[in-house]
């Protein structure tokens, strides 16, 4: 399955939107935290896990999903939320802790819930697999051909929930796909020090389901692999497991000293920037021109500007609202 021209352009634009969103967030995050960095200060406090470099995973998979399909994400969720179509203003406002945010400021960056877009995420590693199974089960019980996709890092594949979920999904032939984003690290721990096999795709054999490894951080390759898995799931043939090699350009979280990372590694990674590579390809294919690229980037900046301005200008919740919403 090859992406159409529209799909390619959507992937390209969305990757730029994600990248710029994250770069901007990195800047905003340090506001109020200079000269001394304090994690609790500034307009965006708390932990911040950015996904710049991991855009191909988000767009390659999300190309195949609609609003009815469910996505669960991990602690590093922005790229997935954006590609899933989560309301950018409400999402940004949530990250700013504002009343207008997706969770009225209660959730924050690791806890983005968009019911309309069927997106959610969690700060607990490996926790998104089981709920995705539940969404898939609900679809199946309701006779819908909706699918669910759970994303997680390669570190999460060593959490017990990964195994339990794959077994249950395979057993019940649930329309669910587990996507592992291998960005080489779980915080400071390299994959070789956490994972007994080279690729988690090999683990699909333990459940009798298809497993595919997508090297090279390439959105088109992800698109192809995900297309097969999503199609299978929609047709009632059960789950698949994908592992996608991708790259983390920032630290684990903002403020990470990254002492564990070989010097120059990030520069090398940026030499394979998937956005630049797709840009070249689109240019060569005549799908994109310098002008249309500039226009697109300008539109992206405007969209970002709007989202960040909305977040910044929105009011904080009243303190006593902390007492609401424990129950509906």
């Amino acid at each position, binding site marked *: 399955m090859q992406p159409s021209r529209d799909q390619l352009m959507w992937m390209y634009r969305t990757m730029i939107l994600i990248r710029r969103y994250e770069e901007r967030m990195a800047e905003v995050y340090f506001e109020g935290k200079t000269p001394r960095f304090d994690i609790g200060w500034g307009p965006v406090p708390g932990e911040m896990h950015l996904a710049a470099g991991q855009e191909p995973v988000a767009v390659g998979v999300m190309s195949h999903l609609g609003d009815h399909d469910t996505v669960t994400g991990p602690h590093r969720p922005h790229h997935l939320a954006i590609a899933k179509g989560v309301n950018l203003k409400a999402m940004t406002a949530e990250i700013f802790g504002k009343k207008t945010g997706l969770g009225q400021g209660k959730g924050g960056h690791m806890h983005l819930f968009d019911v309309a877009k069927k997106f*959610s995420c969690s700060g607990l590693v490996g926790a998104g697999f089981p709920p995705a199974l539940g969404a898939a089960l609900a679809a199946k019980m309701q006779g819908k051909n909706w699918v669910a996709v759970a994303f997680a890092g390669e570190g999460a594949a060593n959490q017990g929930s990964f195994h339990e979920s794959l077994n249950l999904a395979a057993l019940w032939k649930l329309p669910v796909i587990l996507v592992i984003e291998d960005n080489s690290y779980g915080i400071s721990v390299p994959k070789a020090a956490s994972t007994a096999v080279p690729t988690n795709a090999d683990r699909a054999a333990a459940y009798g389901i298809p497993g595919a490894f997508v090297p090279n951080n390439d959105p088109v390759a992800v698109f192809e692999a995900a297309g097969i898995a999503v199609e299978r799931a929609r047709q009632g043939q059960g789950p698949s497991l994908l592992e996608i090699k991708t790259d983390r350009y920032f630290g684990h979280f903002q403020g990470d000293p990254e002492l564990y990372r070989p010097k120059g590694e990030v520069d090398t990674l940026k030499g394979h920037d998937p956005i630049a590579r797709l840009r070249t390809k689109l240019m060569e294919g005549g799908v994109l021109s310098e002008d249309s690229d500039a226009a697109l980037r300008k539109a992206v900046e405007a969209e970002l500007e709007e989202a960040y301005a909305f977040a910044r200008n929105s009011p904080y919740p009243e303190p006593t609202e902390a007492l609401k919403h424990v129950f509906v």
Partner: protein
Amino acid sequence: MSERKITMSKAIAEAIDLEMARDPKVFVMGEDVGIYGGIFSSTTGLFAKYGGDRVKDTPISETAFIGAATGAAAEGMRPIVELMFVDFFGVCMDQIYNHLAKNTYMSGGSVKLPVVLMTAYGGGYNDAAQHSQSLYSLFAHVPGLKVVVPSNAYDAKGLMHTAIRDDNPVMYFFHKGLMGLGWMSSPATASTPVPEGDYTVPLGQAKVVREGQDLTIVTLGWMVHRSLEAAAELEKAGISAEIIDLRTLVPLDRETVIKSAQKTGRVLVVDEDYQSFGLSGEIAATVAEAGALKSFRRVAVPDVPIPYSRPLEQYVLPNPQTIAQAAQGMLEMVG
């Protein structure tokens, strides 16, 4: 109230049955809930009636299937999921307390999770340290879960109806020794007349199961029956005990407890859970904050794991004698 008397297990299965019949979104998942009918008969008959699509046996993968309940509920289903023994919560607590319990709050109320998580608790039949715990106060400590602990068939059915219809996660604890199983002793008072149709018992309303003047016994579950026995003994000694069956811990009916404490001036908590950092303390704090705590005692498991051997287990579980003794001790105290 009908005169048909049934066991608590039958009452629970009946409530689930009625709810499954009225709402196709209700379904059941858990280990051995299918043909087996639930190890403690909480789902007896449902598999035969609704089949494996709505009464689903699971692998021994609590994290996966309880987490799946959360995910299915977020999509509009109303799962009832069984954790066979509450003692096993440790393999899946993250899905329960960081997700099922918190997603509603973290989403600013936009995510509704109508899940009933039912589970067996309690000891008294020598099943040792990993199969005899109560632990309900631990779930009551963590915000976001309603916690139900019925003591008899009538309440069990009505509370189950309410739990299933609630749009929030409800932990539903049943004591194995109250279920009226053919193979485990049950107090006679646990089986009660139960109407055949549906009815609800509200969450957050404690029940004064015995009126009295001299002291207030605050309790729940199996301990209601043991406290009633103790009260009968105390009666003979001229002591009039009021007994409050809390029925739910979240919401907690503090008002009923405080009112009774104000009346009797003495509060005795009888709890099958570990003593420290749990229910008994919460009752003390509640009454003290209301300025109504004059005299306080508790009979609970003395901060040891539940031992296997019969004399040891009997020693650590509250029983009518230890309850009555504690009550008598309070009455003898000056002040």
